[in-house]
Each structure stands twice: as structure tokens, then as C-alpha cells.
């Protein structure tokens, strides 16, 4: 039983990483109905920017804040320059665009900062949390930040006019235009916010997985899985999905014989697909009813 509890705790700790990434995935899905395959790379790039700022002598929190702003503006810029022109192109063309963006960001980061692994500091330290060997203070801090982020997003979407406008633009673009909402800018704003959330995710993840251009590859896959599991239309679902994926991954590794580290990911994905076959809208997502 203790093994089980320990594995669940460890799962929650890794799950926090996925939850954070899944939030960014849901943000952009809400705005544009696409999974952004380059989301992880954008987060990685943001993390490198914060690292660079710290190298230049900025204190942690100032670098953090500056990175958020840079990422927000950068996300908007990417949307305006690259994806707004593709708004009317076929969906698959957009997916190709995401893949292209992925290749560019990854390669440019490698050129600027090279592929050696770098240490990244944590503001929470890495001592055991409440005496537990399984959760460090950093991981506890990460869970805390994820939950704070979730609450902040909830408040933003429920109680601000711009949040209301963004929700309207996402649910019925044409009606939104008819009440005077500039839906095109709402999409750009969604990109900016997703990019900033991704930056937070990257900065929190980097102390765990170390900083390098390929650090987000695996994380993004789990982030997608978490978002899809939770229901792509629900930020809360994404966070819960993130924790569940983390827990399941650890339990599968411990209890299913023959599942080494290599097979953890396929098994986690297989579980998620099973869930989706039973409940296609995800755990907390809204079923989508098509009008014929």
C-alpha cells in the first residue's frame, strides 16, 4: 500500500508538468480549434529567453516577468505574421504550418544556445517537501502555481469583459462579429496567452528535465494527451487530465510487468484512447452536437 501511495504522489508531481502544458494547449485550442504542435517548442524558446536574461544578471522574478511579456507579444506576432494568412486555408495546411514552426523554433534555439544540457534554477528549491522523498519543494511549488494559474484563468474568463469577448469569439465567431467583437484579434490574444502560459510551463519544467532545445518533445505529447483526456474545451479538465496521466504513467511503470521506461508512453496513450473511445468528449469536455 505504501508503494501505491508513493507512486501516486510521484505521479502527481510529474503530472503537474503535464497539467501546465495541457493548459497552454487548451488555451490555443479554444481560440483556433487546432492543436498547436509547436507549442512545446515555443515554451522551450521562452525558457531559454528567461535563462539568457538571468545570465545577463536579471534576478529570477524579473526575468520571469520579462519572459512572460516577451512570450505574450511573441505569440501574438507569430499569429499575425504566420497563421492569420492561413486562417482560410484547409485545416491540414495549418497543421503543416505548425510542423514548420516546430522545425524553425527548434533549429534556431539550437543555433543560439546549442544542444548542451543546462541547469535551470528553481525559486522553490529542491529539498524534500514536508519530509517526503517523492515530492520536492519545487514540485509542490509547481502544483501550487498550476492551480493558481487555473484560478486566474477562471476569473479572467468569467468576470472580465475581454474574457467574455474571447469566449464569444471562440464559440460563435459570426455572432461575435455581429456584436462588434474583433474576432481576429481575439485569436491573436489567445495565441499570446497560450504562449505566456507555455512560458510558465517551460520555466517550471526546466529545473526538472534540464534546459535544452529538445526538452519539451516528450512533455508536449503528454500535455496533448492530458488535454484530450480532460476535454479540450475545459481548462479544469486539462489540469485534472495532466495529473491523471502522471499518476497512470507511474502506476503502469510499477505494476504492469514488462513496462519499462520505454513503454510508459505508449501505454499511457493507449489508456487515453480507451477513455476516448468510451467518452469521446473527454472527462470534462462538452459533447459537440453537429447540426446536419
Amino acid at each position, binding site marked *: 500500500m505504501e508503494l501505491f501511495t508513493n507512486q501516486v504522489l510521484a505521479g502527481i508531481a510529474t503530472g503537474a508538468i503535464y497539467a501546465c502544458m495541457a493548459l497552454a494547449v487548451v488555451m490555443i485550442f479554444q481560440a483556433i480549434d487546432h492543436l498547436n504542435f509547436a507549442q512545446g517548442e515555443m515554451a522551450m524558446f521562452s525558457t531559454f529567453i528567461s535563462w539568457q536574461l538571468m545570465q545577463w544578471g536579471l534576478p529570477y522574478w524579473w526575468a520571469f516577468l520579462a519572459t512572460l511579456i516577451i512570450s505574450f507579444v511573441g505569440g501574438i506576432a507569430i499569429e499575425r505574421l504566420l497563421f492569420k494568412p492561413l486562417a482560410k486555408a484547409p485545416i491540414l495546411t495549418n497543421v503543416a504550418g505548425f510542423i514548420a514552426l516546430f522545425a524553425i523554433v527548434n533549429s534556431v534555439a539550437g543555433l543560439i544556445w546549442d544542444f548542451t544540457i543546462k541547469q535551470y534554477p528553481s525559486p522553490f528549491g529542491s529539498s524534500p517537501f514536508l519530509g517526503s522523498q517523492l515530492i520536492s519543494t519545487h514540485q509542490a511549488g509547481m502544483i501550487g502555481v498550476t492551480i493558481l494559474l487555473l484560478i486566474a484563468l477562471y476569473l479572467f474568463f468569467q468576470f472580465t469583459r475581454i474574457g467574455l469577448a474571447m469566449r464569444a469569439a471562440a*464559440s*460563435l465567431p459570426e*455572432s461575435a*462579429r*455581429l*456584436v462588434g467583437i*474583433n474576432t481576429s484579434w481575439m485569436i491573436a490574444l489567445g495565441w499570446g496567452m497560450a504562449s505566456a502560459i507555455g512560458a510558465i510551463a517551460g520555466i517550471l519544467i526546466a529545473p526538472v528535465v534540464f534546459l535544452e532545445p529538445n526538452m519539451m518533445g516528450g512533455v508536449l505529447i503528454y500535455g496533448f494527451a492530458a488535454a484530450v483526456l480532460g476535454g479540450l474545451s475545459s481548462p479544469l479538465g486539462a489540469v485534472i487530465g495532466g495529473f491523471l496521466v502522471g499518476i497512470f504513467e507511474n502506476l503502469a511503470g510499477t505494476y504492469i510487468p514488462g513496462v519499462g521506461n520505454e513503454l510508459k508512453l505508449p501505454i499511457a496513450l493507449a489508456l487515453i484512447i480507451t477513455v476516448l473511445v468510451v467518452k469521446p468528449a473527454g472527462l470534462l469536455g462538452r459533447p459537440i452536437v453537429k447540426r446536419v
Partner: protein
Amino acid sequence: MTAMLNIKDLRAYYGQVQALHGLSFSLNEGSLTTLLGANGAGKTTTLRAICNMVRSTGAIEFEGKALSGKSTENVVRLGIAHVPQGRGTFTTMTVEENLQLGAITRSDSKNITSDIERMYAHFPVLKERHTQQAGTLSGGEQQMLAVARALMLRPRLMLLDEPSFGLAPLIVRDLFKILGKINREDKVTILVVEQNAQLALELADQAYVIETGRIVMSGNAKDIATNEDVRKSYLGY
């Protein structure tokens, strides 16, 4: 009286298909005008062209400003509220959120709350349901919500696309009464597209009849309503 909306030689296209063939008409400030015609005559397209939701050529002027080239949201920001066919309700949001969305472009946030109260006075049923998801309302209630949402813009001009569609006759009567009241009391110019010609002509003071993308008849609503030939050939009752 001055013309508030002036449309000259309006042509509109869906892909290769031309839907409007040089349509011209104007609306007087404070008037309540109806645009009548059969299915596919181009009524909806005309409204959509005013808001630039369909590719069109020709001149549309609103209070002296040209609308062509403006995005839909910028047309709306000039004070033109459009209640689309199918009502465009934000079904997953509450009734109150729908009303707030109607006022989303306004910066006088203090007056918005009192405007919402005014809407509840016009449509008491919306007050009863203000925390309910709009998708749970009945068709008639959703139509009232759509009109209320449009009024939250404090529009100068309101465009309504077949507000009677799918509603029970009694509810349609109620709705039209309220439209008349809004027109008189709030000084909102109204253009309403209708298939229910009889009712629309009772309500309106000005009427246009449209056929295959052209205006074929215009005049005082009462004259058109009493003109036997018009009724038989265009309005079908």
C-alpha cells in the same frame, strides 16, 4: 427627413453566383421599414451585405459614411445592430452574459447595468431566466433575447432577419408590438426582413418588395398592403 441609410446599385455574390443585381433603396431616420419578398429573393443577402458579411459591390452609406471595406465588427461599432437569421444566440452562455455581449463595444460601463434592467422591463421573461444558459430558452424567448442583445448596443439602426421565423403567431404579435415600441420610444430606425408580409406591413410605415435581387416595388406600407395586385403577385395572400 434625411436618409439614414443609402444603398446604391448593390450587387452581391456567393462564389460565382450573383445574388443581388443592382439593388438601390434608402431608409429614413426613425422609420420602421420592411423588406419583403419570396424565398431566395435576396432579403437576407441584403442585410448581410450591409454588414459586409458577403462579397459585394456598390455604395452603402450610413449617416454619410461609406461602409464598404469596413469589417463586420467596425460596421457594428457605427451603431448598426444585426439580428441574424437563426438568432445567433450564444447558447452556452447565460442570458445575462448574452446581454453583456451586446454591449461589449460600449465604454460607458455604468449605463450597461441600467440598460440590462431596461431590457428586463421590455422582456420580463428574460429577467426570470437571467442565470439560465441561453440554449435552454424556447424559440420565442431566444428571439426576444436576440432583440434585447441587439438593443444593448444602443444602436442607431437595427436590422432584423425574419424575426417571426419558427415562432407561434401569438408570440410574433408580441414581438412586433415591442419592435414598434422600441422604434417610437427609443428612436431606433428599424429594417425588418420578413416573409410574414401581412404582419410586417401592419407594423411598418415603409415597405420595399424585392424579387430576384432587385427592388420591384416601394412605397408606404399601407398603400402596398391595400394594393390588390401587389398582394397577389408578390406577397401571396
